[in-house]
């Protein structure tokens, strides 16, 4: 009887039921869409952080480069004192610590790994490979004497740079590169710590037409490509070497620039940070939270939009939907005073009448949930379809802290800045160029728990609306209800 009565009533008031369900549905759909967009922004942020940080890493430990130290080495192309003759070819390939990075003893890796709360630690040596080649002109670098004219075009100078990271071969799950990211070929074996082998990023492999078995030249040394890694969007490291080999080629034996640390649990991160500071007072420990706060650009704006405007818009829409539903339910009960009075006269208890009204609200809430899920999924698909690529930028303030884990800087301007000048100047110019931008496509994935939340919210809305209607019905005294008929 309950269901028959319920179904007939909803059918009789189908327009009103549709309005209530649609109202709740729109409110819930906004929640679903905003949650999906928010989840998409979080995923995008995670992508950016992974690209900067390394998969599986909770924090990175670096030391700030002292002013005037580190950075690209000076190129010494013609020997000391005497200018080389015009037409003399030159070539240099230099591997040095990344700009802004200071090196420290790799023994710290083992010490950090022993700290309480640390799950794993891995040392990394972040390097830049810069090579320049060409011929000397009559009046120095780049001038030509082929035509005998001072206005003649200087001979071409080839300049190239790419980023290199030395990784511990024994640690596969933490660091600038993890074994799971090697999608073709293989990871380093335990006895390859000082072998001439390399894993290259898929983007660099494509750019340089490298494949498994090819050779890649680092610091004028040919290395066999044994693996190709698919890295998160925005990662700028091109070539990964065994740590020992990287230390040998860069002439930085026993040194690392970064220690990648994973904590046993998220709650232990702050305690681990404190322990590391105690162990290395001059170190900079960067957590993923620190890194996230440094992210700016449209991704940051989208994040802010999703968490602030989106949240309040959803709350406002839900409140409006709940209010409209409640008002319509109360109005419906007011129109059915005679009906409920009659039921009470027939011996229906107040509880039963209230249950009838509540169940009508519940069903409308359920319908609203279904409508909301449908609209929400549609909205999320629309966001995924029309959302432009977002950019995330980590500014120089972070870069100078040496917090980049997996990144390097690729380009020409930075290295040219170091030519012939003091290395400190080179560092400063490099730091200015270290602003790191990553383009990320925003998707709005609808997660299962969001759908569950949406349906629960709609049901809650229906129950709230039904409760107000039921409260009105419960207060009806049968005599008063029937008297209104007369």
């Amino acid at each position, binding site marked *: 009887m309950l269901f028959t*009565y319920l179904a007939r009533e909803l059918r009789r008031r189908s327009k009103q039921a549709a309005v209530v369900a649609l109202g709740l549905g729109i409110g819930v759909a906004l929640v679903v869409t905003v949650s999906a967009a928010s989840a998409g922004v979080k995923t995008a942020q995670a992508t950016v952080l992974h690209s900067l940080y390394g998969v599986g890493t909770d924090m990175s430990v670096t030391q700030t480069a002292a002013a005037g130290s580190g950075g690209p080495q000076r190129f010494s192309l013609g020997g000391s004192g005497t200018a080389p003759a015009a037409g003399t070819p030159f070539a240099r390939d230099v591997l040095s610590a990344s700009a802004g990075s200071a090196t420290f003893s790799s023994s710290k890796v083992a010490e950090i790994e022993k700290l309480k709360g640390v799950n794993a630690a891995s040392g990394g040596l972040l390097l830049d490979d810069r090579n320049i080649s060409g011929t000397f002109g009559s009046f120095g670098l780049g001038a030509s004497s082929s035509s005998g004219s001072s206005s003649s075009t200087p001979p071409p100078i080839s300049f190239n740079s790419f980023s290199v990271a030395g990784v511990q071969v024994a640690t596969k799950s933490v660091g600038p590169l993890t074994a799971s990211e090697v999608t073709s070929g293989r990871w380093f074996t335990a006895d390859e710590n000082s072998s001439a082998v390399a894993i290259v990023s898929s983007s660099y492999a494509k750019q340089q037409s490298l494949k498994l078995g090819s050779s890649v030249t680092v610091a004028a040394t040919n290395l066999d490509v044994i693996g190709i890694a698919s890295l998160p969007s925005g990662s700028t490291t091109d070539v990964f070497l065994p740590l020992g080999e990287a230390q040998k080629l860069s002439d930085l034996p026993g040194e690392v620039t970064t220690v990648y640390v994973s904590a046993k649990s998220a709650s232990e991160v702050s305690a681990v940070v404190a322990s590391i500071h105690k162990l290395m007072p001059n170190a900079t420990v960067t957590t993923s939270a620190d890194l996230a706060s440094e992210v700016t650009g449209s991704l940051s704006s989208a994040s802010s939009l999703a968490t602030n405007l989106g949240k309040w818009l959803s709350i406002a829409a839900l409140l409006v939907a709940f209010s409209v539903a409640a008002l319509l339910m109360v109005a419906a009960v007011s129109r059915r005073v005679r009906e409920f009075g009659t039921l009470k006269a027939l*011996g229906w208890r107040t509880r039963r009448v209230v249950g009838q009204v509540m169940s009508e609200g519940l069903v409308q809430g359920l319908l609203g949930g279904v409508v909301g899920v449908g609209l929400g999924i549609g909205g999320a698909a629309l966001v995924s379809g029309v959302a432009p690529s977002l950019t995330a930028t980590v500014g120089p303030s972070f870069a100078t802290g040496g917090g980049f884990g997996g990144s390097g800087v690729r380009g020409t301007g930075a290295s040219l800045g170091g030519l012939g000048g003091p290395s400190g100047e080179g560092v400063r110019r490099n730091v200015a160029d270290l602003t790191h931008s990553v383009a990320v496509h925003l998707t709005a994935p609808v997660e299962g728990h969001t759908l569950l939340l949406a349906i629960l919210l709609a049901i809650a809305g229906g129950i709230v609306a039904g409760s107000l209607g039921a409260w009105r019905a419960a207060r009806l005294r049968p005599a008063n209800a029937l008297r209104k008929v007369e």
Partner: protein
Amino acid sequence: MYELKDVSKHFEKSGRSVPALEHVDLTIEEGDVLAIQGPTGQGKTTLLQLLGGLDRASSGTVMFDGQDLGRLGEVKLADLRARAFGFVFQTFNLIPTLTALENVEVALVPLHARGVERRRRAAATLEEVGMAERSSHLPSELSGGEQQRVAIARAIVKDPKVLLADEPTGNLDEETRDEVVNLLESMSRFRDLTLVIVTHDSTVARRAPRVALIKKGRLSIRERKRSESPA
């Protein structure tokens, strides 16, 4: 069955106390057929609602089978209405979305009768009032007389002790009025029900052996002599 002693009922209206019933004494025996007659707005319906446990007296006592209805809680009153009292209203008060059969079933819901049993009893009662063939029709598809027959079936399907009819012929033409009154009388007789009819229609009131006249909330009883036959 009923014993009303010094019953008064007042309503609050715009901060003033408006009397509806004043110092009513009334006794109704089991099997009695009583018509409460009087002009509109004199307290007839209020008295019927007190008899049916739909309202409480402002003062005095309304005893039903030894129970003071004014002292019973809402749940016990609801149970009493579900089992002992059958109501028939002037405007029929059928649930518009339910069929005739389902409307009759509604009265059995508070008795926790199972679905099959509800339908069986409802169908049998509809047949008793001559509405078996219209059992699947909605109220909007029935005439006034037919709707009132369904309402009577709804009132008697639970075998109540008392049938309380509030202006049951108020919305009917003369011919239908007589049919409905005949039906109420026959149901009362065959089921041994106590019947209380509120009416302003003296034609209907004249058919009852006892008539309670009500005017400005005050009641006077007129017993029909045995030699007098109903009209």
